[in-house]
């Protein structure tokens, strides 16, 4: 549900309270006000996101998708990079018909990157996912895990197509496979 905060006959915040009674629909607020207080009030009420006008249609779509993904978590059992199949249920990857099992850490890493596919995930966020906190000093261990993961999904781990390094920042899972 998309709700504007400024309505001709009331405000979106109170309408939101009525609509949420007994229902669990994801709600996004649209508003031309960008004060922190409004933003916090909206999110504090339990809205799933708050978009400030003006916005691009793509922005709205991205946010909607993110909310939908979060709320109705698609429990897809499998996903696919161009020539790599990932089986979340079995925690394994298949490439050229050969199946390789993933360790728990590799699974978490790959899932995190897949959920943000196409976008950069910082090393801090990856460390937080693996070790419950942005731990300084784990970067090298992270690199080891990344290398192992590459060995399982990449044809040539030294020249990765899918799991790309973004120097100084983090990693990005390229769905289509870079040249």
């Amino acid at each position, binding site marked *: 549900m998309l709700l504007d905060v400024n309505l001709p006959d009331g405000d979106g915040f109170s309408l939101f309270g009525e609509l949420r009674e007994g229902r669990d629909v994801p709600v996004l607020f649209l508003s*031309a*006000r*960008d*004060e*922190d207080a409004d933003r916090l009030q909206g999110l504090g009420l339990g809205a799933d996101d708050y978009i*400030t*006008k*003006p*916005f*691009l*249609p*793509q922005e709205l779509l991205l946010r909607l998708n993110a909310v939908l993904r979060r709320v109705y978590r698609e429990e897809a059992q499998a996903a696919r990079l161009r020539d790599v199949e990932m089986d979340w249920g079995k925690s394994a990857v298949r490439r050229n018909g050969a199946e390789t099992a993933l360790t728990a850490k590799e699974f978490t890493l790959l899932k995190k990157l897949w959920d943000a596919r196409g*976008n*950069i*995930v*910082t*090393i*801090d*966020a990856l460390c937080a996912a693996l070790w419950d906190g*942005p731990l*300084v000093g784990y970067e090298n261990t992270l690199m080891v895990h990344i290398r192992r993961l590459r060995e399982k999904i990449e044809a040539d781990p030294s020249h990765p197509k899918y799991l790309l390094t*973004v*120097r*100084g*920042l*983090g990693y990005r899972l390229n769905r289509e496979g870079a040249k």
Partner: protein
Amino acid sequence: MSLRSIFKGALLVTASAALIAVITIVGILAFVFYHSNGGRSWDAPVSRISSALTWDGTDYDFSGDELLENDRWAVLISEDGRVVWSLRKPADVPEQYTLTDVASFTRWYLNDYPVQCRIRDDGLLVVGSPKGSVWKHGISTPAQLLHAAPLWCGIIFLLALGCVLLLPYFAVRRWSQQAQRVRDAARSDWINGVSHDIRTPLSMVMGYAAQMEEAEDLLPERRKQAGIIRSQSQEIRNLVNDLNLTMRLDCAMQALRKEPIQVEVFLRQTVADFLNGGMGEGFDFEMDLPAEPLPPIEADPFLLRRAVNNLLTNCVRHNAPGGSIRLGARAEGKSVVLFVEGGAAAAPVEAAPARHLETDGAAAHGTGLKLVRQIAEAHGGKAAFNGGPPFRCELWMPVKPR
């Protein structure tokens, strides 16, 4: 109206008020003094009354009836305290006096009659007035105090002068603070209103332009134009946002929600979000962070992100694609210095010496960069700019106190 002229006006008002008070007080004192001892109706005639009373060898002869009004009376008391002569003496005035009686009435009242006395060779002449017609009050002042009179007169004068100067000062200050608050509120209302009213139509412009940019049935030329409309509208949006925040920081209306921030993590996330948002495509981003972890700073993450984003946007906008943008941080004393480098500033600084950083100069023009400085200053830090090329900005953020 300038503050100076307001102050002058207030000073004039207070000074006039003080002058009126002084004139009133002096007038009252003069009036009271004129009708007191020395006043025409009371004191002066006593000596004449006395000279009008003469002893002719056998009896007293009084020739000054016109000097003594009908309701006044007089007695002459001899050395042994007996009344030897009297004129219209009331019945309740005794015939005989002791030493203590005399001591009392010469200073105060005789049986409640206000009296004046005159010492003569043959005794004491007492002239009485009706009861309740005159107040007598004795004033005595320590001599020491009178010697120091110039000093305390000076002190009292200075105190009074201080009041005359300070009163209008505080009044004007209070007034101007109130006026400032009202002005700030009006300004923020206005900008909030305008930015609110701009946002809604702008979302239409941006929405339709973005759709036209994607439309298959339009000529490539038209789609490119739609793209320009879209990107320029985004510029306007950023400008409105910056303007809004800059005004709020100016009026100290933006509450800082500070939390501890690990700068390395913050910078990586901000740049990642910047890139994920499709900005900075085709640019080479270089991170320059020390091997040792930096001390955490305390800042409002939303504002700090806004500052770094503005710097990145500035670098991208004034940089040829393929150019490089460097970001980093270092610890320096009680600050962590964040820096962003690349491209040129919005308003290039003429002949700025390389590496020379200005904290307040032409390099920091434009709402976006002004906002960067405001954000740094709101956190108790500072921002230094160099117009370059390459453009460079350093943000000095205070380390979180332990």
